[in-house]
Each structure stands twice: as C-alpha cells, then as structure tokens.
C-alpha cells in the first residue's frame, strides 16, 4: 500500500482543513490609515504576515487577510507595531456572513 495512505500526510494547499473562517468569534479589521505598509504604499513591515499561524494573510501594501480561513486568533492584532488591526466581534458583522469578496 502507498505510504501516503498509512499516515496523515498531504500536499500543502489553500483550505486543507476546510473553511476555518467559520470558527471565528472576532474578526480582524485593518485600518489602512495606521498600517505601515498601506501608508508607505509599498510592501514593508509585513509583521502580521510573519506571525499569522494559518498563513491566511497575503503580503501587500497593506497585507490582505483572507476571512474564509482566518480563525480570529488575534495574533496579528497583538503583533502589529502600529495597532492597525482591531479584533471586532463577529456579531457586529452578522455571524454567518462569509462572502468570498469580503477580504480586507
């Protein structure tokens, strides 16, 4: 039997563990006026991208958080050096709304 069939092993891919954004209680909301990269207009800082444990922040000016997979752990908000990310209760956004286009 193929080795890959006897143990848990997969090729890295987006969404391997499902749409984990459904687990989220608090949503990271980024204020571009405070984000270092957004204000500089270039790909700098990126500390939120470095720290995101689920790899659901894309690099950019500023970085983009993929809410389909973001579990709302809040590490990005904790680590952001300028306090540009605020964790806002999902209830304020409507708990179940997860449109694909809603990527901050």
């Amino acid at each position, binding site marked *: 039997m193929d080795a890959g*069939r006897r143990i848990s*092993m*997969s090729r890295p891919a987006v969404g391997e563990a499902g749409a984990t954004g459904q687990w989220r209680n608090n949503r990271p909301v980024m204020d571009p006026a405070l984000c270092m990269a957004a204000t500089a207009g270039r790909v700098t800082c990126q500390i939120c991208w470095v720290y995101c444990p689920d790899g659901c922040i894309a690099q950019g000016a500023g970085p983009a958080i993929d809410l389909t997979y973001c579990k709302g752990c809040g590490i990005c908000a904790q680590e952001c050096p300028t306090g540009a990310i605020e964790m806002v209760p999902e209830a304020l956004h409507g708990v179940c709304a997860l449109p694909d286009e809603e990527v901050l």
Partner: protein
Amino acid sequence: MASETSVMTGNEAAATAARLARVQVIAAYPITPQSPVVETLSAWVESGELPAEFVAVESEHSALTVCIGASTVGARVFTATSSNGLAYMNEQVWWAAGARLPIVMCIANRAMAAPWNVLNDQQDSMSERDAGWVQLYCRDNQEILDTTVQAYLIAERLNLPVMVCYDGFLLSHTMMPVSVPDASTVDAFLPPRPAPLTVVDPADPRNIGPVVLADPRADAAGVVSPGYMELRAQHHRALLDALAVIPEVDAAYSAVVGRTWGGLTWEHLLDDADVVLIAAGSLATQLTLTAEALRAEGVKAGVLGIRAYRPFPAAALAGKLAGRRLALVFDKALSYGYDGPICTDLRGSLLGVEGAPAVFGAVCGLGGRDVSPDDLAAAARRALADLDAGARTRPTDWVNLRLEGE
C-alpha cells in the same frame, strides 16, 4: 558469530543494545530506575564511541517529541523512561504510534505515584497498552539486550513503535553475565533503517500529520486521503501482523546470534501441566522455581511466560491453555476497579474456547513488595483449594497484602 561476555546491569544491556543498533538520535530525561541507560549512552556519545546526537531535554514529553521529529525524517532513534516519566509522555506516546514511527523505547518498569515509590511493578507500561505500541517484556538482562536489538527490526518492518519493558531494580540494577554480539554480527541481522513513510523533500513539501476528519476526503488536488478510521484500522492490522513478525524476527536473530527467546510467549514444564502459572517479566522467571516446587508436591505445574503483551497473543495462549485445569495469572499491575490486565485479557482470549481452564487472578509485587517463589507457591495452593471447592471464578487474590485488621 563473535561475542564477548560481560557482567552488566539490565540498564547497561539496554544501552549496549542501542549502541549495537547504531541509533542516530537519543533524547531522554533522567528518571529512576531508567537513568543509567541514557547516562551510559551520553557517555558513549561524548567519548565518540557512539556517533549519535544526544539531545538533552527538559522533560519526558520533550524527549519523546524529539524522537518523533527525528524518526519522522528517517533517523533511527532511542529513548528510555519509567513510571511518571512515561505518564508525562502520554500524549506523545499516542502520537508516535498513530504517526507509525518505528521508535524503540526501553521502560524500566516502576510503580506509579501517588504515593511516590521508585520500586518495581508493571503499572506504568501496562497502562499504555491501548496506545498502539508493541510491548515486549523481558525476563533477564540477556533478553533485554537481545530484545532491544530485535525491537528495531520489528519496528521498522511494521512502522510501529516498540516498548521494551523490564523490571526496575530487579533487572535494571542487577548485574548478570550478558553475551554481547560484536557490531558486525548485529549489522548482519539489522540493516540500516528503510526510508520513512513520510515524504521529506523540500522540493515537493508535505503537511505531515495534518488534521484528518471522520470520512475519507479529497484534497485540493482531488487525491482522496483516508479518514481517521481507515488510518486506525491499518494501525490495528499492523499490530496484528506483529503476531507473526515478532516470532519471525526472533528466529532471524537466532539464526545470526544463536539465541532464541520464543517470540510471543515462552514456557517451562508446560507440556503435561494442568496448573499453568502465567506472568510477564522477571516474575515469570520466579514462577519457574514455584512450578518446580509445586511439582515436588505432586502438582503438575508449569509456566507460560508472556513476552508480547501487545499485540496480545490470544490465539497462541488459547492453544496452549485448552485442556488444562487452571490458569493462574500473576499481575504486577491492576486496572483499578476491575482486575489485573493480563488476567483480564486472558479471560477474553479463552471465552468460548473448548476445554478452557478456569482463570484466576492474583496481584502481587505492587510498589516493589517482595514476592518470593514460596509466596507464589502459597498463592497457587490457595487457588487450587478454591478450584477444588468448586470455584470457577473468584475475586483477585492480593499476594502478601498486610492490611491491619485482616
């Protein structure tokens, strides 16, 4: 084959076996009575005698975690622990098995706290029986060396971790002559570790150990991966395959080294016995003296030693016990609120077997309580008296229990 006989402790025999197996990574945390195993290995690593990485860690949980990491990428690894150290590893004990890693871990069996007690019983490893490791129990220091070397071949053929268990102090700190095969002899028996099940390739990376949900599931590329039950069923089948592989490996070892330990079980004076004394480890060695003493009294007693506790050799035991009068199981562990683990498993093995003997259980030696062959013979006489009085089952006999007021 070339060999040299040295007088050594059980712990030194375990360390010597790890050296002969050419282990590449060792991670361990000291705990009595295991500590001399890894102290010996660390000295050999320091002197250059053993070309391996010795990773000093802050806990047993980390010790096994280091072994898991190293084994995942293909290294041959070793660790050893006892009692609460094994309990502290518990989470990773399950991980090592479910990830199908051929880790070999020696257990110098010691009683579980509370209360603190550093002496021998087998509660520590018996409590891990369901974790999916192969468990082998040794009766003397020679068997510790030979079994630890054999354990690598078993582990690597089946992709299963193996615990090599031996009684703390009774074997771990007792010196005996041990024949040590030379390195080329062991090399002829034990080839280098085959490639791991894991794919470790930076050019084609993998998630190793990602979450697996209830049902088989297609990944992003459409490749269907097994669900949790499918992985567990294969793990279980590998354990059952070990029922054949353990004796095969013992036979292969015997062909090269010239010593055999019987595979799953071993026996003494069993052929015509109608009273069969059953135990694992050094306790079963003591039972050979008990059986001889009982024979001098006219009782046809014999010994059936348990070498493999997991997988449990149910069919082999049923075959050897059918037609006997009594199977008396001495456990150095207890499933509190029920019965001894070997006794419980044996009862299940014999259910519906034609000519199955009565199975009585006795618990002894907890926390290092001394058990002499005479004590064991007295327990056997009590069991025979109960049997002659018509009992087919009875409560667990506590050997040498000294409760006030009883």
